[in-house]
């Protein structure tokens, strides 16, 4: 093992540090003590079956669940008691599974909805250069956009805020292969630009070449954590947990 391949964790503050996270919806206890770190610039994939608690993990980080316990540090800052908009303003961009494009807003209104949180955020023309379709469709109502356009819009609007840590939930789900390829290239580009990304995915083929690390969630707990370089050796274990 060379020094270069060592994780950079010890000296830098993690972009995101989750400790013993529990979450409830009403009376159902969904997360049972999840802990993991994401280093700045790292791409981490959360894998798991449907209902294992991956989406809930992202929602709990944003404080969108009924109740949560445990500690979530964003760039070293405790967010346990913060409301969602305060957490977002610490530099977290959240893209929900259902994409969350607002029907009563135009494409451009959707894009401009989240406030800018940093001055160095991408300018509108840079966003439109990255997503030319959104410029063409700027006046269309949000839900008249195709599924792929909606997904691009959901990512574009959090990039525009200047968020450096992105929580992306099932972005490739239900989209045509050509769109999935475009999303793949987009994540690759964001990774090169140094974004920290926590990716919830079901599709290991999509995430395998993208992520630095894979965390498998099972029944609301971390069942397995695998570095990218060990992925091949662990494929059997992951497949077993994913039930494929």
């Amino acid at each position, binding site marked *: 093992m060379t020094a270069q391949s060592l994780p950079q964790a010890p000296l830098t503050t993690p972009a995101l540090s989750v400790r013993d996270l529990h979450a409830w919806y009403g009376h159902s206890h969904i997360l049972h003590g999840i802990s993991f770190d994401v280093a700045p610039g790292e791409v981490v994939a959360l894998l798991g079956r449907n209902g294992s608690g991956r989406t809930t993990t992202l929602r709990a980080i944003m404080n969108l669940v009924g109740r949560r316990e445990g500690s979530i540090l964003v760039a070293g800052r405790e967010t346990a008691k913060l409301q969602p908009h305060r957490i977002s*303003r610490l530099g977290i961009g959240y893209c929900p599974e259902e994409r969350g494009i607002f029907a009563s*807003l135009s494409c451009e*209104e959707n894009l401009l*909805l989240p406030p800018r949180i940093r001055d160095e955020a991408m300018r509108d023309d840079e966003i439109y250069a990255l997503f030319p379709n959104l410029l063409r469709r700027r006046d269309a109502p949000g839900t008249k956009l195709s599924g792929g356009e909606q997904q691009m819009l959901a990512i574009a609007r959090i990039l525009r805020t200047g968020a450096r840590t992105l929580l992306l939930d099932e972005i490739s789900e239900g989209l045509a292969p050509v769109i999935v390829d475009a999303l793949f290239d987009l994540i690759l580009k964001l990774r090169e630009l140094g974004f920290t990304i926590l990716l919830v995915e079901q599709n290991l083929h999509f995430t395998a070449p993208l992520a630095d690390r894979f965390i498998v969630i099972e029944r609301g707990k971390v069942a397995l954590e695998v570095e990218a370089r060990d992925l091949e050796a662990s494929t059997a274990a992951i497949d077993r947990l994913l039930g494929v």
Partner: protein
Amino acid sequence: MTILGLPIQVLLGQLTIGLINGSFYALLSLGLAIIFGLLNVINFAHGAFFMLGALAAWLALTVGAVNYWWALALAPLATGLFGIIVERLLLRRLQGLDHLYSLLFTFGLALAIEGTVRDIYGTSGLAYPVPAALRGPVDLGFMRLPAYRIWVVAVALVVCFGTWALIEKTRIGSYLRAGTENARLVQALGINVPLLVTLTYGFGVALAGLAGVLAAPIYQVQPQMGSSMLIIIFAVVVIGGLGSTMGTILTGLTLGVIEGLAKVFYPQASSTVVFMIMVVVLLLRPAGLFGKEA
């Protein structure tokens, strides 16, 4: 000239009176719809806030010698501020609970406000004079109408369409529209939704307060003036459906006019025509005329 056996003057006269009632319906149902959209609160106190607006104008004039024109700005502001305090201190605690709790709370609040006002000022009604500049009739050619009533329609139309523009054409309006669809997500995208909720409630209440000031010289200021109106306002919101600002405004105006016409053609039905329309609309389009089907 006659239409359907009636002199056109009579017809136009009732149409105009209907339009005045419709102006109040539009102003009140607009606030009610905005509040329900974002807060999911069925604001039963809306009629009480309408009355408070009228009372604030009366108090300003009687106690503070503040004239109508100042009251037109200050009374809605004071009513809205009162709404903001109610939301921050009380209504907020019911967030996340069943609709029924906020409904019962606002219903109780309305009773408390009306009871207090009745206790202090009685039920006989406090007269508010029409401002000097708007006294006397205006000749519209086909009929003479009190200038004040034309003023009411004009102000209501300007404020309604101003509100429409605010909601549909501005950044803050896009927050409100998005929040009406999914407030939690809007908050996760970095917008201070609790503040938006407070301001929206305050704004809706201020609209009711403004309607109250406009109404003060027409009706007398009395504790029940709002609650009798409120039932029709709810019917307007149900008929118009939620999800369209313009739809709510137009429904309010139209129902006022229809009510006015009913008074001419079949007076017995004038107090029930709105509810009969509501029944038909609910049967044919459960989400309302302009509502988005869920």
